[in-house]
């Protein structure tokens, strides 16, 4: 399975995570191409279902990158996201899927390199887990 490249969906918010992305871009670190990025105004707006849908469509991993608890513009957005990720972890566990396939990270604008590192770390972690689902025979 050495050539398995996990399909990963990342949700990131427009404030901290976006600045971090810019910083990391400035540092000319490259994002892994298998991570599909979705930009949201605030991670607090991501519903449980949004986090499940990627798995339904064949993703192998999902993560949310948001602000630090004290820097969320919309007050508590990241806390909400954490609760929903926890709920999805519980659902995945019940489905016999490793709950580590979904994670949530808090970033600050200053730590730009973390933004890219997380993408690589998730890719490596999920790669070791293998695919989340079997290829579908309709």
């Amino acid at each position, binding site marked *: 399975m050495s050539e398995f490249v996990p399909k990963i969906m990342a949700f990131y918010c427009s404030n901290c995570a976006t600045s971090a992305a810019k910083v990391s871009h400035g540092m000319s670190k490259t994002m892994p191409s298998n991570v599909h990025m979705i930009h949201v105004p605030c991670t607090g707006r991501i*519903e*449980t*279902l949004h986090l*499940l*849908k990627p*798995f*339904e469509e*064949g993703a192998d991993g999902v993560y949310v990158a948001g602000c630090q608890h004290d820097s969320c513009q919309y007050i508590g957005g990241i806390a909400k996201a954490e609760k929903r990720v926890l709920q999805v972890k519980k*659902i*995945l566990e*019940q*489905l*016999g*899927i490793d709950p580590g396939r979904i994670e949530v990270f808090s970033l600050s604008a200053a730590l730009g390199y973390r933004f890219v590192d997380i993408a690589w770390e998730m890719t490596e972690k999920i790669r070791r887990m293998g695919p*989340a*689902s*079997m*290829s*579908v*025979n*309709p």
Partner: protein
Amino acid sequence: MIVAEAKPISEILTMVKGLKKVLVLGCKGCVTVCNVGGAKEAGILASSIRIAGRKEGIMVDVGEHTLERQCDPEYIEEVKDIVPSYDAVVSIACGVGPQFLSERYPGAKVFPGVNTKFMGGAVAHGIWSERCAGCGTCVIHYFGGMCPIARCSKSLMNGPCGGSSHGKCEISKDVDCIWDMIVRKAMDQGRLNDLLEFRPPKSWTTARDGGPRRMIREELVK
């Protein structure tokens, strides 16, 4: 409202195992209010069933629909055209919903998607608590407006048992002793005398003990 909780997904997956087309049917009544059986939860359950199928390499066709209420034949009628096209319906309404569905659609396989718990309300965000056991003859006016039948672990009618401790019931530190509350309220109001009167045994004829219940309001019957 009627308070319910989601069944473990594994239990639902066992019910729908091997089926190709499943309809998850929500209800906009009580179960929406207690965040267990509304449109949102129907979506999550449907998605979970699809993911579980996908994990095994099976594409399960999961439909989602949410009715105004599932305890009313009028609304149950709404899905008459879609129910027959599914192998099974998972109702996430309270226990009434799947039964109304089973009665209306005798050919359909109907599964309960939630565990119906009690009649109560939200005491805080995300916390619900029981209030009424539906005994059919309300007597809470004798107890300062609180119900010892539903809320005392032993349904005591004449005062707290010997296990009441720090306002909590002997069965758990998470359960309030309702008798402690009844007594304290009576004392605060200077009406302790009301509680000194002997409360005779209750007639359970109007409760479930009297057999399955039915109510007829002549003026409403068409």
